[in-house]
């Protein structure tokens, strides 16, 4: 079998521990049930925390045969060195920020780590997750914290899928545009 006329892209969800990366991945799978080709597969610790990665493959047939490989990285600090490997080769990166105010320092640390390891020019969007919580920082505040344009930050509630489609399509669009005219 062959993928000669196909295109495959790799999207990676990155963010601090418990920011909702795995929940976001599950939400993506629920959002596009007819496209799920594999997964979600979760490589997790006995406490249910991501140990290496989670994985989901989506298959979309249009005039191109597209497979989207979606990975999440670990958020826990102790697995710091593994994240870099999972994120390498990404066509697009989604930073899943935890919008709880007590988590903002961790967001910033994780964001800086991501910027240190991601190749220059890789499309990157931010999901300001957990917007349903009463003390959540707004998408604008998250943008200011991370020093990015407000248009790159999407408010999301991964738990019920709210906003997930917008940010996922935005990331996919930015990632696919890298292949235009190649």
């Amino acid at each position, binding site marked *: 079998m062959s*993928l000669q006329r196909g295109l495959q892209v790799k999207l990676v969800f990155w963010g601090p521990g418990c920011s909702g990366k795995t929940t976001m991945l599950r939400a993506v799978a629920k959002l596009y049930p007819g496209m799920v080709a594999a997964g979600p597969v979760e490589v997790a610790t006995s406490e249910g925390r991501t140990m290496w990665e989670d994985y989901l493959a989506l298959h979309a047939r249009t005039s191109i045969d*597209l497979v989207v490989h979606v990975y999440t990285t670990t958020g826990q600090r102790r697995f710091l060195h593994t994240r870099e490997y*999972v994120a390498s*080769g990404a066509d697009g990166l989604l930073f899943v920020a935890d919008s709880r105010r007590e988590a903002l320092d961790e967001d910033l640390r994780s964001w800086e780590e991501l910027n240190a390891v991601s190749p220059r020019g890789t499309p990157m969007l931010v999901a300001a997750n957990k917007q349903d919580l009463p003390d959540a920082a707004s998408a604008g505040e998250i943008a200011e914290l991370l020093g990015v344009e407000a248009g790159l930050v999407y408010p999301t509630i991964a738990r019920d899928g709210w906003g997930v489609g917008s940010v996922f399509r935005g990331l996919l669009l930015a990632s696919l545009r890298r292949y*235009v005219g*190649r």
Partner: protein
Amino acid sequence: MQELLERLMGVVEANLGRRKARGIAIVDDRFRLWAVRGGVGRDDLAKYSKLPVKELEVGSLIHDSQSFLLKVSDRFMVFVAMGENELSMVAAASLKGRINALSDFYKLDRALEEAEKEGGRLNSLLRETAESYRRLSQRGDLHLLVLCDGDGKVLAWWGSVHPNKLWELAALGSALVQMGKVGEDRLSSPFHNATIMYGNYQLHVFKVCELDGKMIILLAVAGEKASIGLVRMTLSQRVDQLRALVEVEGRARIGVSEREVEEVIEKFAAEEKR
């Protein structure tokens, strides 16, 4: 197929005259490399790849001072790079004068048609690897070969597998390689392969080559009694070809239009509304 390519390479070499070529390649009309001997890189072929070679007659010749391209069948061309300036015409004239000796290239045309029907040269190579293993070994079965990059993007596969399982296995292979890379850094020693043993299966991931800093890997799923050393040996005989094909086909297949991108995004938006 492998034997045919080797033989054709030999015929080309023998008919070039006394001057030794820096490199020889057999390429099809989409400039996919089928066989390479010596030093032939993408840059060497780049200037020729823009020409309308499909419209050329068999026997047509294009050249510059250091290299030439000779159309030897409906679908195939021989590219030759000479080591010294100004010798390409001498070698080209010598080879063109013996074009009848190259008639077996038509067999490659048929092979290419078959390969296109079945999904490309990379797949053919994987199939050949599997068939070669079967000829050599009396023990155990080889169930699946998957060629993918370190990100789990599948380039080709051979064997019987449900597509969903294919993606998951490629992701598993990719994860194993990433873990291998962690160990590489920690142990200061290069990664070669990773293995997981199951009750009835063995799963092996081999490093084939590196391309643009990305590892290209082969994942093999075999029965418990299979000799994975033999699989590796049959694979190692084809590594150069795999590397060349991955370089050409892997790069050639990417590239979309703005309209196609929009179409994909519309499809995802529509799926959300279902």
